[in-house]
């Protein structure tokens, strides 16, 4: 047992399995007391099971750590309040909130049902809000806190078949940047991780999005399985633990990509190229200038097939 987080109390949502489990165990190993939250749902959000959270609590205790389970869903404001309250009731205060809980319902945009959209937005976005709001009230009062959110490459770069998940996870990045600014002056930091790891959530991808991608001929590099580099869920934990230590007091509002032994700071969404004129552009002017001055080195991530009749595309010379 190390003691970088001795005396700190943490909540990890979705900590019954995968990445969240690795984080809960790593926080406890550094001396934090941990609320292991997980309602034990399937990857699509269905069902309920206490055993994943219980099993992680047991694992932490068997290594000499301190943990308690919580089974509330993050989807409601009431659930979020209960989760934070269970930390305060059991350990006296909350220092760390890790918003890791998430589900998947992959579908191409033209087939996506309202229920698939709503369920994913609810768990990821409302879930982040429902837990962060009550934590923020307490952290602001005590002038100390760490919030670590979970985003995804799906939203930051774009993955086919995940309009709901991509919107939610890019939304988490924006949420992180705003919360960092709302709370920074109170000694609280808020950052986000975009993880790449092999978990049961990526295991569902071959059945859904990956199959669609292959069928449509828009297969993309799979970060989670690319190359010989090992990417276990446990590999995400060290960076999360680091962001929760006192050493990271001045890192705030940032997005980090973490996979295997690779940790990257995400680029800020700032201008790469720009064009300016005094006054309002005309469409004719933009048609001249945009291709040559603005997007000349920006690749089309999903180009239309060559056999599609496409107005505006220069005709290929006949063979």
């Amino acid at each position, binding site marked *: 047992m190390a003691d970088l987080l001795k005396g700190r109390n943490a909540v990890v949502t979705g900590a019954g399995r995968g990445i969240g489990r690795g984080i809960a165990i790593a926080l406890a190993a550094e001396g934090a007391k941990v609320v292991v939250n997980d309602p034990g749902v399937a990857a699509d959000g269905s069902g309920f099971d206490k055993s994943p959270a219980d099993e992680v609590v047991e694992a932490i205790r068997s290594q000499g750590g301190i943990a308690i389970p919580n089974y509330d869903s993050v989807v409601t404001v009431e659930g979020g309040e209960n989760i934070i309250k269970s930390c305060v009731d059991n350990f006296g205060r909350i220092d760390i909130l890790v918003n890791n809980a998430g589900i998947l319902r992959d579908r191409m945009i033209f087939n996506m049902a309202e229920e698939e959209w709503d369920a994913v937005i609810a768990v990821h976005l409302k879930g982040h809000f429902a837990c962060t709001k009550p934590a923020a009230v307490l952290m602001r009062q005590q002038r100390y806190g760490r919030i670590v959110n979970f985003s995804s490459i799906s939203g930051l770069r774009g993955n086919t078949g995940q309009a709901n998940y991509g919107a939610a996870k890019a939304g988490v990045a924006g949420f992180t940047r705003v919360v960092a600014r709302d709370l920074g002056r109170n000694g609280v930091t808020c950052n986000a991780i975009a993880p790449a790891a092999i978990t049961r959530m990526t295991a569902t991808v071959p059945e859904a999005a990956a199959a669609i991608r292959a069928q449509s001929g828009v297969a993309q590099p799979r970060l989670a399985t690319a190359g010989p580099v090992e990417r276990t869920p446990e590999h995400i934990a060290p960076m999360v633990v680091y962001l929760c230590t006192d050493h990271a*007091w001045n890192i705030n509002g940032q997005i980090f990509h973490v996979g295997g032994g690779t940790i990257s700071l995400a680029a800020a969404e700032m201008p790469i190229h720009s064009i300016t004129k005094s006054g309002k552009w005309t469409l004719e002017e933009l048609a001249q200038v945009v291709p040559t001055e603005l997007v000349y080195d920006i690749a089309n991530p999903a180009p*239309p097939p060559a056999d599609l009749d496409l107005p505006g595309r220069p005709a290929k010379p006949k063979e």
Partner: protein
Amino acid sequence: MGMLEGKVIVVTGSGRGIGRGVAELAAEEGAKVVVNDAGVAVDGSGSDRAPADEVVEAIRSRGGTAVANHDSVASMAGGESIIQTALDSFGRLDCLINVAGILRDRMIFNMTEQEWDDVIAVHLKGHFACTKAAAVLMRQQRYGRIINFSSISGLWGNAGQANYGAAKSGTAGFTRVVARDLGRYGVTCNCIVPRALTRMTGDLPKGPSQERVVGRGIEAWPPDHVAPMTCYLATDQAWNITGQVFLVYGGTVAVLAHPLPQRTIFKQGMWATDELIEMVPQMMEGIANPAPPPEDIDVPGRPKSQAQAAP
């Protein structure tokens, strides 16, 4: 002849502000326009047919073609009805422009569930509700343009807008995915990040970042200046631009970086916390804390400053 001659374009939230400018320019360029606006207040309350009707009237008075629609984008039925109006009135749909939006600003520690839900509903569900209905048609006809609206509130972070920032960052992520879902069907999907003086910015203080960007102020950015780049993305000329996010204000258009890995540290195997304590500050060198803690609060880990050390 205009650059959008014969195109059928839906512009949500086009009764006022940026949406109005887009609808009017599209019509000037020859498009048949569905002017959608529920006529709500900035906070989403109320409803009023007048704003949409007035824009339709303005377009017609200049010889353009437009019809009004007053549905809310925040439900699937509303989104479907908006798209159906284009089909019923003009026979097809070429372009959907998702401008509609509301604001309910509040610091995260004071934000109510209602304030969160309403903003997420209009911006995110609104983008989905209209886009889903449009995507079905555009995929079938192997042609289409979808233009979403994001905000620097999410991309850069504005205090007091956790709901709006999450929603607007979400539309950028939504754009990147939808572009990939539909690219092979001849459909493009891009995103505009506008900065303009409208009734939505009326309550905001003029921050230093706004001054910094142009050296003047937001007054130099009329809402109608957002329209040309938005309409350009709807033209046939923009057939090969998709999945991108463009910042537009005044006479400036910029293409934005995606939040992809920029600086990297790597080791074979799993990092130890001690190693990260040494390496992460090197990776973060020169990256400023956007909201640093004030000098007078006790921040564990912060080196004692000169001010605190002085007697």
